[in-house]
């Protein structure tokens, strides 16, 4: 597909994680709960698969992590850094233009006549 969005679907987990972490730092379980709550259970996946996404984003320099002790439990908290903010912005733009394009196709109405 032209326009550089052939990997769009594989970027969806990254987009959701980055968007959630834009508001505050969170740990893996919290992120999964937030995705399930905000998608009203539409998005179903093995909860553990969030960690390769988080670790990959951290490796790319989009996130940073720190281990924190909260209520006697030690957890790894993730937060966005400046590169993550830029990546979120790029992914959001791609998502918006792609979903708009799909909506246009679904609505129909614009008929292109072959020459």
């Amino acid at each position, binding site marked *: 597909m032209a326009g550089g969005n052939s990997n769009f679907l594989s970027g969806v987990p990254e987009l959701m994680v980055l968007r959630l972490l834009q508001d505050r730092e969170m740990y*893996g379980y919290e992120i999964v709960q937030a995705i399930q709550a905000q998608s009203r259970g539409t998005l179903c*996946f*093995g*909860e*553990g698969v969030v960690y*390769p996404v988080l670790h*990959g984003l951290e490796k790319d320099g989009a996130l940073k992590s720190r281990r924190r002790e909260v209520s006697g439990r030690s*957890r*790894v908290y993730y937060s966005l850094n400046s590169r993550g903010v830029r990546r979120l912005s790029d992914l959001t733009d791609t998502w918006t233009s792609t979903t708009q394009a799909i909506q246009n196709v679904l609505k129909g109405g614009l008929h292109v006549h072959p020459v």
Partner: protein
Amino acid sequence: MSTPFKALEDRLLRGGIAPRHVKRYLRELGEHLTDITEAQAAAGHDAPTAAARAALGPDEELADAMLKRRGFRSLCARFPWLVFGVVPVLALSLAMPWHILVLVVLKTLSAPALFHTLEGMVLFTGNFILVPAIVLLFVFIAWRQRLSLAWPILSTAIILILSPHWDNQPVADFPPGFSALHLLYSYSGETIRGGFTPLFLGAWWQLIAAQGAKLAAQYLLILLPLAWLVRRHGKTVAIA
């Protein structure tokens, strides 16, 4: 590593994921599992642990999520020929001068009774500790990353061929046709006369005739880690 993830750990390591990434992944999965278990128990679930493990995702899905990210692969998985074919040569050539230097420094600092003579210590550690330790290192790396047996066999073979046999005979006392690299080191009035002889350089049959027992002990020590790995590998295959 915690039992619920043993199969997943093996699968990730065999898939070439670096051990540090595997360790971190499994640790966070374990913490996540605890969170789900507590939530399931609080919700009055009959078997919270089983339900929590199911919610975490099947091993296949958890493994695939990691394996598809090439950035998590270890150097050994990406370039095994480099690690097990080239690094042993470098390790041997760098370890020899360093081991003498370390012994000289130790002797200078503490002069323990163990060091009867520096020369004796250099020859002993050179023959019986240094080279087997290098082999052990490569065998450990292969075991830790669940690599094919072919790689540690390659590194051990290279080390066996190149490994020096240290001796303090004067050059004139070596058998005829015998090639040897000689090292003369003088420190505080003590001289180390270490002739170290990679087998490929010399008339190895003459060396065996002259130093048979010592050589056999040296090479046995070199082969022991590999024998352990082969035995362990055989057991793993039998279980699988």
